[in-house]
């Protein structure tokens, strides 16, 4: 790596990257690669005539990127849905297993494989958080006796902009990129992930409740959501519960319990107790998936 007297500071590099991200989101197309282990499993299952169909179905329903891509392709004119495919269960039921396996296969082959040396842990954490949010979303919806499928999908895809950005940054032609630490990249990802996710969701024509959740899930915007599915408000709380459970930038329990979103969902202390009690099981599900 060359070093010169004019080498930019980390702050200048961040500014350059910020400009690069903004320009890419405004003019370029954004894409999202799969995790290598997910792609491998899909390929194996697709190739095996005796494969357990439930495994492929479960795989699709647990991976952020694959879920998004399946929804995108399933809604394309090529598959002629009689009405928009807005849920993974609906996609599985509508497309049938053979078509779904073929679709997953082509998606896996066409997608880049997400192998970024030096960032494996961070990528896994991003995926883990998304899955945990989806699983908490399901449980919140169950307590509300509300649509569980939509809550899961919104949670699974709410931070889809993060891997998009990471991929964008780490494959960019900018020099000296790899000298940037995760500590330097993370604020950028945090800053732009909603814009990137919104752009991807629009490009892929993801279901409108999912687009809304991606755009508005944070604490300061979830009240702007208008979809009757409640996916955004559910995702807001699910995101906090996932962070708390996985120990990633968690709030103190007392702060968590005082969040306005809990009041807006009309959850009493015993409702939150019940949700927190599910944390261990959700953590195990996430670990099992990422191994």
């Amino acid at each position, binding site marked *: 790596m060359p070093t010169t007297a004019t080498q930019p500071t980390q702050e200048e590099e961040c500014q350059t990257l910020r400009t690069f991200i903004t320009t890419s989101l405004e003019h370029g197309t954004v894409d999202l690669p799969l995790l290598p282990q997910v792609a491998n499993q899909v390929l194996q299952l697709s190739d095996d005539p005796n494969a357990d*169909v*439930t495994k492929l*179905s*479960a795989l699709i329903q647990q991976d952020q990127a694959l879920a998004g891509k399946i929804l995108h392709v399933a809604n394309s004119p090529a598959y002629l849905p*009689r*009405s*928009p*495919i*807005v*849920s993974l*269960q*609906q996609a*599985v*039921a*509508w497309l049938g*297993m053979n078509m779904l396996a073929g679709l997953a296969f082509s998606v896996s082959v066409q997608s880049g494989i997400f192998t970024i040396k030096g960032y494996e842990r961070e990528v896994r954490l991003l995926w883990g958080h998304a899955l945990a949010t989806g699983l908490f979303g*399901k449980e919140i*919806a*169950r307590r509300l*006796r*509300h*649509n*569980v*499928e*939509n809550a899961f999908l919104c949670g699974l895809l709410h931070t889809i902009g993060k891997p998009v950005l990471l991929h964008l940054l780490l494959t960019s032609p900018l020099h000296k990129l790899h000298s940037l630490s995760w500590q330097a990249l993370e604020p950028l990802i945090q800053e732009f992930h909603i814009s990137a996710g919104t752009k991807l969701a629009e490009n892929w024509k993801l*279901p*409108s*409740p999912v687009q809304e959740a991606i755009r508005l899930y944070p604490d300061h915007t979830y009240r702007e959501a208008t979809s*009757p*599915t*409640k996916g955004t408000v559910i995702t807001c709380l699910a995101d906090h519960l996932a962070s708390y459970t996985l120990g990633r930038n968690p709030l103190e329990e007392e702060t968590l319990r*005082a969040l306005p979103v*809990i*009041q*807006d969902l*009309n*959850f*009493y*202390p015993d409702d939150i107790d019940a949700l927190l009690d599910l944390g261990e099981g959700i953590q195990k599900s996430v670990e099992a998936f990422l191994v």
Partner: protein
Amino acid sequence: MTAISPYDLIVIGSGPAGQKAAIQAAKSGKRVALIEQNREVGGACVYQGTIPSKTLRESALQMVQFLQATDVFEFRMRDDVKIANLMTRLDKVVRAHGAFMTEQIARNGIERLHGRAQFVSDRAIQVQGLDGTTRTIEGNYIVIATGSRPRVPDHMPIDHEHILDSDSILSLVYLPKSLTVFGGGVIACEYASIFALLGVQVTMIDTADRPLKFLDQELTEQFCHAFEQTGGNYRGQLKIQSAQWDGYSKTMTRLENGEVLESEKILVALGRVANIEQLNIQAAGLEATPRGLIAVNAHCQTTVPHIYAVGDVIGPPSLASCSMEQGRRATCHALGLESGDAPEHIPMGIYTIPEMSSVGLTEQDAVEKFGGALVGRARFHEIARGQISGTTNGLLKMVADAQGKKLLGVHIVGEGATELIHIGQMGLLHNIAIDRFVDNIFNFPTLAEAYRVAALDIAKQRKK
């Protein structure tokens, strides 16, 4: 804990029954507290029951009418407007109704307390807020109006994802290809007919040989016929052994006869249970009945004289219309106000497709009670308005005494039944003779003309 505040009346629950109880007291100048555990007032009626299901029904009917009109008016509906639009309209109607009720409560000066209520004694109630803090209030009179929720049978793994109840089915974001409905009651029939009309392959499973057994058999036969015409299938005299999701793409219903039914989703509509567990009614000196209800007398008064119970917590008829009247009358009785004559001939409206409505005695009831009956029928396809509006699938049935003189009951199936029934109700309330329906003039063309046709049918039999 804050200081105890005395209220003239405390109402627990803001559904139709609780709301009317509170408003009646407030209008009488009393100090009223209304405790509601949800953020919004209105109860299940507004958010999970009457209003949403009827709105969904109306939207489905309008959509199908539009689709039927496409040949005439040469337009085409977008494929992607279906369920999302139905649900958005549902949300708007529910919000509007909730806002109206909130405003009505505020206008009457009723103090709203947001929290969960629990009896501390027969006059004191502890209210727990969302943040866990509590306050205790006291009232001279207390009205329990906490409503009901869908029953979850022990062997039914309702996950609100693949196996739904009547609450979670309202938040579907797409139409499943197939739906198995457990139950043959009002809620089961309403949703089964709505989803069948929307093109979902619906199968109803129940132990009874026909749905809605409490209704006149001719009505339910006509309902079943219409249901089958939209692709629905009622399968009676069957017992469900288990239900489960296959973990992949479909649900499996195992019947006791060994048969296995597959469908994309299941709706469990096997009754409702009263919301009384969290109330700690024992502290007030009350006990639940073996069916989990609160026992009351004709004035909706419990065994503790200053505590009343109204609406779904006291059991059938569990109609919003009756609950409202129970709430009003309970308050009147408690406060010593004149409440008027006790309601007679309460109509029952069932919002299936087609609608069904009933008031007074059925043919079978009349025979049992009076030893005989004459029945007059008017089929909607014989009525000009039925032909004009395309409402030909309907029947109005008038039940008279054995001499064909006295009106005893009216039973209607067909669109508009729940409105049309009120003519019969007024006839019963004022003891109007069958001949009055023949001698008088109805607007033409209207479906109300069916009353005259049915009355003539009775008169014709009488002459024999």
